[in-house]
Each structure stands twice: as C-alpha cells, then as structure tokens.
C-alpha cells in the first residue's frame, strides 16, 4: 500500500508540478468558465425572445386568425423563423455546429474563444427557448383568463401573473440545461481552445499517464456542477418562501 501511495505521489508530481503543468488546468478552467458564462447569458437572452414569440403565437393564434391583421403575419413569420432555428440547432450535434462556426461562418476570425461562446450560446438558446415555452404553456389557462378579466392586457398578464409562476416552475429544468452546457463546452478543444478537458489531454499527451489528468479534470467538473446545483437549490428555496 505504501508503494501505491508513493507511486500516486510521484504520478501527481509528474502530472501537475513538473514544468508547472497545473497551469494548463488553471488556464483551461478559466476558458471553460468564461465560455459557459457568456454562452449561458446569450442562451437565456435568445431563449426568452424565442419563447415569447412562440408562446404568444400559440396562445393568440385562434383569436388572431379570425381577423388577420398586419400583426398576425409578422407573428406568423417570426414564429416560422424561430421554428426553423429550433429545428436546425436541435437537429445537429453541438460539435458540428462549433466546427461550422469556426471554419465557415467566422472563417476569418482568429478569436476562437469568441467563436466558441457564440456557438454554445446559440446552441443553448434553442433548448432554453423550449424549456421556457413549456413553462409558459403549462400555466393553467384560467390564470390568463383571470388576468384578462381583471383588466390586464396580454403583456401585463404575462409580466405580472404568468412569468413569476413560470420562472419558479422551470428553474430545475434550466439548472439541468446549464449543467449540460457546462459539460458540453468540453468539445471546445476541437477548435484549438485549451479548455479544461483539453488541458487534461495536453498533460496526458506529455506525461503519458491517464489516471491523474483525467481524474483531476473529472473532479473539477464535478465540483463545479455541485456548486452550481447548490446555488440553484438556494434560489429555489427562496422562491418557494411565499407559497405558504
């Protein structure tokens, strides 16, 4: 057992201490976090806009079809565009989207970090949009009707009555999406970014030991997800306070 620990210690020194290899991990962690954070904000922004368009169209379709005004056609067109976006983004793997962004869409850009943020943000937006739409559609129609009969218009009903309930309902699913996003950024290495996973790969490629770098990378991801889950848990509890 003692030799096992001695070996473990040597392995640790070789993989992380020698030549300052831990700095790969540090740098990779920073890149993973910044990509995830920016993509998360972007995804939320895109998701909110698209969910608003799609659910507004779904909710008001029947009443608007009766007298087809200009607004109906605008909404119908935006709904179709959103639908196309969702189909394409959810129908293709994120690695492929990332490579398309990197080599084709932003062919002349050298800032691969920015390209990755945009690619992951656009990807995440599609999932967030559907989560939010699901949340909006799940609220009982009676809530809408109650709002309208109190004299609120559609937008006021949404803001004061529906959205607060939606937010509480979708929080666990959103948290899930953020965890997925954080872990999905591990493919950023495909476009030459040193993210956490790639950092582990680079150490592995230089020390030829698989155990230490892989376990270290796995542990760091795990810790990040545990912290994220705990934060969302706190938020959930706070939001539930007024339920009784």
């Amino acid at each position, binding site marked *: 057992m003692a030799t096992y620990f001695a070996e473990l210690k040597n392995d640790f020194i070789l993989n992380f201490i020698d030549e300052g290899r831990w700095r790969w991990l540090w740098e990779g962690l920073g890149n993973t976090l910044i990509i995830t954070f920016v993509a998360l904000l972007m995804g939320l922004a895109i998701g909110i806009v698209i969910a608003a368009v799609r659910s507004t169209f779904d909710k008001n379709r029947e009443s608007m079809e009766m007298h087809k005004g200009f607004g109906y056609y605008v909404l119908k067109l935006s709904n179709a565009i959103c639908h196309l976006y969702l189909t394409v983004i959810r129908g293709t793997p994120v690695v492929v989207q990332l490579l398309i962004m990197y080599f084709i869409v932003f062919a*002349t850009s050298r800032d691969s970090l920015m390209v990755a943020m945009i690619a992951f943000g656009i990807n995440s937006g599609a999932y967030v949009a559907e989560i939010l739409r699901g949340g909006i559609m799940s609220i009982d129609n009676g809530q809408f009707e109650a709002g309208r009969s109190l004299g609120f218009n559609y937008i006021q009903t949404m803001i004061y009555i529906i959205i607060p309930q939606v937010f509480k309902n979708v929080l666990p699913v959103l948290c899930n999406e953020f965890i997925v996003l954080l872990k999905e950024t591990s493919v950023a290495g495909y476009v030459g970014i040193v993210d956490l996973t790639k950092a582990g790969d680079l150490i592995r490629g*230089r020390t*030829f*030991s698989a155990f230490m770098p892989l376990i270290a990378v796995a542990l760091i991801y795990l810790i990040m997800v545990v912290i994220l889950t705990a934060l969302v848990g706190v938020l959930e509890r706070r939001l539930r306070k007024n339920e009784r």
Partner: protein
Amino acid sequence: MKKLLALFFVLLMALSLFAGCGGNKNELVMATNAAFPPYEYKEGNKIVGIDAEIAEAIAKKLGMTLVIEDVEFGAVLTGVAQGKYDMGMAGITVTEDRKKTMDFSNTYATGIQVIIVKDGSSIKSLDDIFEFNADGDPVGLKNPDIKVGVQENTTGDIYSSDAIEKWGFNDLNEDGSIKTDRVVRYKTGAEAVAGLGTKVDCVIIDNEPAKSFVAKNQGIHILEGENEYAVEDYAICVQKGNTELLEKINKALDELKADGTIDKIINKYIPKDGGAS
C-alpha cells in the same frame, strides 16, 4: 462526508487496479491515429498506409492476427504506456521524454518536421517565426501576432509549445491578459491545415503528411531549403518493460528490412521522385 470521500477514493483505486487487466488472445493490437497520410489513413473503412502494412507484415511474421485501433494521437501514447494496446504505430517519434515511459523498437522510417504556409505568406523561413538562442534552439516567437497550428501532442506541438510557452507562459498582452493561444492545437493535422491563412499563419507537421496535404489543397506550400525543424526517427512503441514483444518486433523488423519488404512498402506510398503522392 469523510466516509463518503474515503469510499470514493477506495473505488477509484480499485478501478485503477482493474485498468491493467485485459484479454490476451493471439492478437496483436496496434493503436494508431488514422489521420496521418501516408503513414496511416482511411480508405473507406479500412486503415491503410505505411504503418498499417508494416504492422501487417510483422503480425504475419509473429503468427498473430493484427487488430488496428484508431484513436486520438495522445491516446495512442497513453494507451501503449498503460498496456491497453500491445503496440503503437502512428509515425511516433522517439524522444527522450517518451523513452521514460515506454520502450521503442528499432527505427523503420525517418520524419522531418516541416512548415506549411499559404502562398504569398510573409513567412519565408524558420527565422520569420522563431527567435533562436546561441545554440540554435527556438526560444520564442519573433512576432507575437503569429499563430502556429499543430496537431495536439505531436512532436510539432511539443517543440513549438516548449519554444513558445516555456518562456512565454506568463507573458502578458498589452491589455494585461495572459498570452496563450499562440500555438493552436487541433485534433488532426488536416484541421490545422484547414485553418491555414485564416486561423493560423503556419502549420508545423511531419514531412510526408505535409506533402499529402499540400497536394490536396491549392494555394499552400511547404517551406523549402534549410527549414527543417527537426529530423526524427519513427519507431514502434510498446509498454515499458515488455521486452518479450519488443524483441519479437525488432527481429521481425530486421528480417523485413533485410528482405526489402519495408523499402517496398515505403516506396509504394512515397514515390522516390519526390513528387507528392
């Protein structure tokens, strides 16, 4: 919590003990990264190339069946070092670092690191890329805007990373951010070449794959003349201490060299007239 943590580590250790096990039939499992023409690449579903054919010939000599596993280049090295694969053949250069963790056979081919640039690039020679010290070793980049593309974990990566990042790891940009991605590491050499001109200014890669890439892409060329970055020997690697297999491989290699099989295989993929194949 402490108990849970202890349990977790015990499980980890148990897992790591299992890592060494594996079936041993009459198979010779070779790991490679089949994106390195003409040494190994895919034709349809089949992995062909110099390494694949030499391995086949060796397996025949040893009376074993060859099984080729196509994995990432880094995984070839790690896998062999851990004994997951019997041997690794992926245009693997013998380096001092690698010798510490695995054993190498006799050399069967020579590779040279060359530089691919876009036609009309301002990079005309190695001196346009690197600063050299008195010993002629590269110690940094001449122009901080230059980006070097490589395949991750290859010698091209390690040489240029050493040159650039051993000295420049903590260098700061003017805005205070840490200088990092001056060496852009791709999963395959082909991706590095795809980024040439737009994403990176030059690609450092082995000579023969470089020729294949240049032949298939217009508007790029290999820097000629005294611009060989490093001359290196390709060899087969096996797990450290697996001398039994190593001796068998060496014996087979010697026989194949003597009867001209190896020359024949290499000539088939790399025509002697120097024309890119």
